[in-house]
């Protein structure tokens, strides 16, 4: 069975027809062409597919698109303030070499964006806890942790 749903993705309302079983990750990637959201395991462990649903990080690979009809979704494509610009979290990842192959990165960026919004000055433990639902096979996490702290500094400078 197919459903006509509306997703407000990165501020733009998008109407799309999806079968009931269409995963949100597949809908974003293949129906809407927003391929920045990646799929690493399709069983909710790696965190690559993390997007923000009404501001909260969720696994888009464990979510049926039809269940979030009408919701606001932010993907990695919507984190920067404008074309050619980077958000403080994105800038911090670049500055601290917090990514290598970049496949897990969109999930980390979404997770960290929400983390720092809720906790602008996280301790080391808060950071480790905050990103402990995202796998990275390249960086060994050290520079990701550094990037989160740096992003907190950049955000503080901006406000």
């Amino acid at each position, binding site marked *: 069975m197919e459903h006509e749903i509306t997703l407000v993705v990165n501020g733009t309302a998008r109407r799309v027809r999806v079968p009931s079983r*269409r995963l949100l990750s597949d809908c974003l990637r293949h129906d809407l062409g927003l391929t920045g959201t*990646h799929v690493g395991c399709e069983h909710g462990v790696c965190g690559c597919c993390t997007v923000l649903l009404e501001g909260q990080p969720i696994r888009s690979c464990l979510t049926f698109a039809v269940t979030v009809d009408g919701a606001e979704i932010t993907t*990695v*494509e919507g984190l920067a303030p404008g074309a050619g610009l980077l958000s403080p979290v994105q800038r911090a990842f*670049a500055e601290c*070499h917090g990514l290598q192959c*970049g496949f897990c990165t969109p999930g980390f960026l979404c997770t960290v964006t929400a983390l720092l919004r809720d906790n602008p000055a996280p301790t080391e433990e808060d950071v480790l806890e905050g990103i402990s639902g*995202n796998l990275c*096979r390249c960086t*060994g996490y050290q520079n990701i942790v550094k990037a989160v702290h740096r992003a907190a500094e950049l955000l503080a400078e901006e406000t």
Partner: protein
Amino acid sequence: MTTRLFGEPVQRREDPRLLTGQGRYLDDLGRDALAAAFVRSPHAHARIRDIDVAAALDVEGLVAVYTWEDLPERVGRALPLLIPHPALTHGRTAYPLAREVVRHVGEPVVMVVAADRYAAEDACALIEVDYEVLKPVVGLEEAVQGAQLVHEDVPGNIGAHLVQEVPAADGRGAREAIEASPHTLAFRLDIERSASMPLEGRGVYARWDGRDLRVYSSTQTSTSVRMAVAAALGLPLPQVEVIAPDVGGGFGVKIVHPWPEEVLVPWAAMTLGREIKWAEDRREHFISSAHERGQVQYVRVGFDDDGRVLGMDVTILHDHGAYTPYGIIVPIVTSTQLLGPYKPGSYRVEFTAVYTNTVQVTPYRGAGRPQGVFCMERTMDKIARYLGKDRTEVREVNFIRPDEFPYDQGMTFQDGRPLIYDSGDYPEMLRMIKELIGWDSFERRPGRGIGIGCYVEGTGVGPYEGGHVQITSDGRVHVSTGLTSQGQGHETAFAQIAATELGVPIERVSVVTGDTRRFGYAVGTFASRAAVVSGNAIALACRKVREKALRIAAEALEANPADLDIADGLVHVAGSPSASIPLSTVAVLANPLRYAFDEETAKATQFSGAASPDRPPIAEGEEPGLEGRDYYSPIRSTFAAGMHAAIVETDPDTAEIKVVRYAVVHDCGRLINPMIVEGQIHGGVAQGIGGALYERMVYDQHGQLVNASFMDFLMPYATEIPHVETGHLETPSPLNPLGIKGAGEAGVIPVSAVIASAIEDAEGFEIDRMPISPSELFDLRIARTR
């Protein structure tokens, strides 16, 4: 602005794209392509009696179903054995789709093409394969008994057997030298299976336009995929192009080629005249790609009162899984790199590589070195323990000294060339790591131990790589090389090399890797070779272009080329900055034109007066354009080295193992970008800690991989990885123009050895098996008190 960027921690040029969701990974391409999916064997060993596809035919969106019998003869042939070796007497490879027999769970049996992946998987679920289940061979010891055979025509399941021996100076063999030694030890070591496990699986997307085939693959070698695909499909090479787009990690598994899917997807695209894409899912990656590690080692060593090794005899059982497409590179690397920074008086190593009904074993970051280093470093610790000496003291007496380079280990390395170390300073490195971790001041107590591990890594193996550099009339520099990238930051490191060599701002340099349209000759990215081999090739190509630019500029400036320099994209007379000409103009002059398309190119047209009418516009021996191509083909590998040390704490009740500190001293010759090198080390250490404490492939007796998901195969999160402290030593390689050695695999190599060393120190009993879980440590404690 400085253009001396070599050695600077330049921020990565690939990041803006990857941080904003603009990367283009395999499954991000081909939005309108048909999807392929595979029916894979649920049995470890079985004969296929019948395949019934009837029920699948009604699935809406189904386009095609293929079994092995549907493939043309050429396409259906066994996949190539990529690296033949005389010792691999019984090499065996799989068919693209199973032919009669399946030999591991996950082997592809039927290919389905449908409108999308959902429909393709629906059809797969309805296909019924009737199997006659055969008894599987699981585990190394069962395999060598040879009671059951993985391949009917491979007796004893033995694919390869190789002995290498380096006799003592007096000509005695290692076994004899050991017998004559004052002290001897004998023991067994075990390392279990793990896997590369990149977060992006493999994937293939193919387009056929009726004449030309374009294949995108998430591969570590696009040029070799191209040749393999052209051969399998019977296409002339110039009609096939292969592109590695952004690749979400490789770590070795993606060097294997052609995968069944790399043959089948392009073939189906040609057959159906449609674009087709297949993206591997996680379970497929676990059961149908490749694993590594997995060895049993029997060691006998003889040594003197100082701990000096007089003879070492190692017998290795190596598990190859069901097939040997990548030959016996992994056990060869184990056998040779086991020697590390040491010079044993004599050495004998023998390995037997056996088949089992499990996923094939091919290189995973480290590629046999972690096993070899585990063996040697456990040996050093055991000697120290036996003699009551400090573990670093025993290592030090066995080191090759700095004045002994080049040092010939007397063996044949994985590239078929002599194992000759080019440079290094192991005593200094030991001093540095001891200082970094605080070895001499460490306060040992029950449940708190310190460990150390040393390694030497042959990097930058040949045969060659090439570089092409073109400066266009807008002053931009376009660099390409044939090998591929999976997160190593090549677009940055290679741009640093080009910017430095050419004297241009890095913003004007762009780098393309892994695209056969841009560069057709290459080997691939593996063995920590990209920076060494492509880096030097690009430097050499830049030097050619620089020379040409100076020659043309000299003519325009009426100066001597020897008096010219390039800085910030301007060729100028040394000491006279006003007499200069931009590289953009030099590029224009390098290409005499009939037609102009802008103001700049008008300068090179035939009535512009730029060229002398007395000679041909292109002089003899010259070519149009400001571009150059060159290759770097190393005489042999260059040898990086490192030493790691760790402090661990073990819980007295739960036996939980916590890495409290982790220190690395690393020598990869001259650093192109220290930030990137450190990142490589961090990532390698994290994979090493995964392999030491968490990751293993668990097969049951039926050959089922029972932990084929991220819920059960435990890759470390940020919470499991300690902060890594690093120190660098730079002993330049004398073998290549840039003096560099490879760094990609370094971090992972000694970690299991280091962690075992530290746990042993904390617990007071020997650790001979990795990985080690809390429950295994707990059991060892219990066994010891009995």
